[in-house]
């Protein structure tokens, strides 16, 4: 009975995540990107298109803002062009910011979905259930990063999204999405699932480096680290600890030592408390 279930597990249903909840166990997938290493080459974005069957919407729709790039490279330029001692061309001061779904621990998109199509999974992902989505686009409206992409058209049946021979290249592990659903970066969940199954059948948990996301794999400068944050041996765990970034803190109290390396680890818009 639902009511007895409700009463029995009451405390379990009343926990705030992540601040007073138990941490994810045994997996919490996490990523960190070294922005200084990023050269803005867009290989990650291309890899993502290939891995996740992203529709190539064409120049016109791209310019219109209807692109489907789950992984996008944002360009920022220094504004000292023409000033004294400034740069000659804006591109000289270009900074790149690869941006994808932040898989927030307390995601603003999850609460507002009327049908519960997006949830926080046990291994720390922000999942999106295409079949359940009815396309109210409230999640995207409430996403601070605007990293959710909507199928404005029925791309599988649109010309030139995947030209005839290209359809042979579609990843069979990933569905193609029809019109009217929301989609976003999944941290290549199909690879994670496969790796977890393999590990489980061998009675262990996934090793660090055993599974890579497509963007990480393609990055020529290894700017992207991805792994299990719970695993103390993982690269991403070490990076987070070295930068004194903690998962359940919305403000990182850093004790930067004098003369030491500057701590530059941060989470984007962390003061909004989505715990990205």
């Amino acid at each position, binding site marked *: 009975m639902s009511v007895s279930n409700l009463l029995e597990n009451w405390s379990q249903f009343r926990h705030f995540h992540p601040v007073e909840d138990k941490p994810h166990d045994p997996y919490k997938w996490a990523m960190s990107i070294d922005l200084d290493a990023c050269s803005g080459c867009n290989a990650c974005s291309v890899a993502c298109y290939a891995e996740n069957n992203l529709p190539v919407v064409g120049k016109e729709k791209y310019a219109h803002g209807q*692109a489907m790039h789950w992984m996008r490279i944002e360009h920022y330029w220094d504004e000292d062009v023409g000033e004294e001692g400034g740069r000659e061309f804006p591109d000289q001061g270009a900074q790149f910011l690869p941006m994808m779904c932040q898989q927030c621990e307390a995601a603003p998109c999850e609460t507002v979905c009327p049908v519960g199509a997006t949830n926080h999974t046990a291994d720390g992902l922000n999942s999106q259930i295409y079949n359940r989505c009815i396309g109210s686009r409230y999640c995207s409206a409430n996403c*601070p990063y*605007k990293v959710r992409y909507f199928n404005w058209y029925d791309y599988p049946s649109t010309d030139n999204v995947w030209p005839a021979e290209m359809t042979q290249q579609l990843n069979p592990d990933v569905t193609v999405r029809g019109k009217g659903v929301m989609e976003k970066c999944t941290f290549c969940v199909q690879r994670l699932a496969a790796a977890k199954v393999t590990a489980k059948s061998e009675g262990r948990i996934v090793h660090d480096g055993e599974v890579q996301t497509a963007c990480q794999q393609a990055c020529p400068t290894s700017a992207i680290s991805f792994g299990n944050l719970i695993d103390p041996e993982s690269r991403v765990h070490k990076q987070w600890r070295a930068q004194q970034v903690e998962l359940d803190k919305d403000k990182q109290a850093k004790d930067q030592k004098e003369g030491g390396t500057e701590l530059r680890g941060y989470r984007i818009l962390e003061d909004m408390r989505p715990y990205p």
Partner: protein
Amino acid sequence: MKDIREDIAWAKINQDVLNSLENPRKLYWVILFVALAMLGVAAGCEVYQYNVGMGVANMDNPHMWGLYIATFIFWIGMSHSGTLLSAILHLMHADWRKPIYRFAEAMTTFSLMTAGLFVAVHLGRVWQIYYALPYPNERGVWPNFQSPLLWDAMAIFTYLSSSILFLYVGMIPDLAICRDRMHEGWRKKLYTLLSLGWEGTDRQWRNFRVTYLTIACFLIPLAVSVHSIVASDFAMSQQPGWHVTSFPPYFVAGALYSGCAAIITLFIILRYVFRFEEYMTLPILKKIVRLTFAISMVWTYLNAVEFASVWYSHDEPSKDVLIQKATGTYAPFWWAMIFCGSVLPLTLAFKRIQTNIPVLFAVSLLLNMGMWLERWMIVAPTFSHGIYPWTWDHDQWPSFVQWGMVFGSFGWFTLLFMVFCKVFPSVSMYEVKEMVYHRRQATKRLEETGKFAAAGKGAH
């Protein structure tokens, strides 16, 4: 001047109102035809959008919501005055509501139905809309009760069904009149069915009175909660320009405001089309106009509060959005909203305008346009200038599909409303009788007891 002639015979009231069911002026058919044509435009747009995808509405990332949501709020807002005012005035024994409340409640019902359509039109996969309903199913999958959209659905369902019941219960005695008086035909059968065998017995009236009062009591907090919940769609989000605590009262005030303006418009139309000059009198119009004026000032105040709290909050993104509204792409519309919503209603303070029908007609339409712009100015600028600078996009413009749908929704509303007024009595006959009766009694008592009052100050 009196609200209504006190010597109207009751039989005459019946006759006049029943006449509206038979032969309205020719303008009625013109309005009906135009409304149908407008609806056709929207239907065409929807078929196109349904088949091709939401992209044809010219939305993109970050402009996820467009005119649909803005117009949805507009129609929800418009629904507020009808039932809410009717219920409040009923509780306050303001009997001048009696000739006008029926059509105001019909307005509530039909604008809610129009608003409901916009939810459907807005969805990317409208054919799966039932996923949002809390129906029990084998897999134990429920909608997400945390979502303000679901509260919306629940609130609108409650409001719509309660409004319909309120309208219907209040109409039963009138349906009995129609049953007794109407010539043979399908409508007589309909009235016979709907009037449930009402004969005006003491037992029926007694229970009727209590029931009507009870529903009125429920409807007031309900109406307030409905628009507060619509405001939560925005206030519960984290976006700059939406995350404002004062949104719920602001929305409720805006809703009452646009509803009152719509009542004025429809009052003028019905008065002419159905020859209701005797019942929808100028003194009553004057009272609604004064009410509208008061509410417009409340709205202006809350608007100013919102701007001030954003300005002094040092919440930079919100402040940026406000500056964008006043100076960016949307500036013309934003200033038009300020003009129509706050400056124009000042004219309503003048006595000569309060009863000048052509001017009021124009002003009430402009007020409603201002309120529509207000909703658009809540929704759109936040998308164009969100919290994350890389996503700023100031050049998006809704396509003809969106405009066509907005345009057509007015046709849909008018169509429903006009058909209702032709099939059901849009002036409450029995309550106008009550009004006339009680006023006559009051005058009589005054004449008998206090001649001096009548001689001195004049009976009010």
